[in-house]
């Protein structure tokens, strides 16, 4: 998988693409965490539009970043979750976290 990071107006967006598993999640989270620590973003957006596969490692990826942003007083949002990604996040109960914007959660 690859992660492309864009930063603008205190918002950091990580565009994830490819397959998220235990093997690929580690470098991805290191890359995202580095960008969070280095910049001063208040909002982290995780974009799943190009994710073709995700197992429960993706849940750890979201939860870990959510906790990190929370500890810095920031917010995390999940966007463009594809049906398989959404299914995994719902199974983990992440649909109950404040990481969704209104129109996203209805999917």
């Amino acid at each position: 998988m690859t992660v492309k990071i864009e930063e603008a107006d205190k918002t950091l967006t990580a565009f994830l693409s490819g397959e998220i598993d235990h093997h690929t999640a580690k470098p991805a989270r290191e890359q995202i965490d580095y960008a969070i620590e280095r910049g001063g973003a208040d909002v982290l957006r995780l974009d799943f539009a190009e994710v073709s596969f995700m197992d429960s490692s993706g849940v750890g990826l979201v939860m870990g970043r959510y906790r990190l942003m929370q500890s810095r007083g920031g917010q995390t949002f999940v966007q463009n979750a594809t049906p398989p990604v959404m299914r995994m996040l719902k199974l983990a109960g992440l649909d109950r976290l404040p990481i969704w914007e209104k129109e996203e959660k209805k999917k």
Partner: protein
Amino acid sequence: MKKPKNEVKITFHSRSVNERLARSIVAAFAAQADPSVSVLADLRTAVSEAVTNAIVHAYPDEMGKITMTLKLYDDGRLTVKIADRGCGIPDVAEAMTPLFTTGGEERSGLGFSVMESFCDKVKVRSKVGKGTAVTLYKTLTEKGGESR
């Protein structure tokens, strides 16, 4: 259970790069029964969880071997057995409890929950010091697809 109409057995090292390999092999093997896209996606996810468990938990400090046995039956059922010779699970029921993990903050503790909700049945046999075998049962097609 009747004899399988096709069977594949593969052994690979407990390297995390092989998680993807295992998913690909299962998907390629299952494709001969013409499953739907969503059945195939469920199977890939469940296998990914089982293989990751073996890599992370069975062999925490060493490289070991993982054997995956795939069996396809005439009626469209598939079994995937993922076996290791690692440390074993002291309490299988506890290990299968949702959110239970010994893997630290970045592991969600959902592996077995995912396997159970994405498969028809999950069977776990484990012995401390001997290893663990997880068998996933999944119906690929009700009719069994075409015989090739």
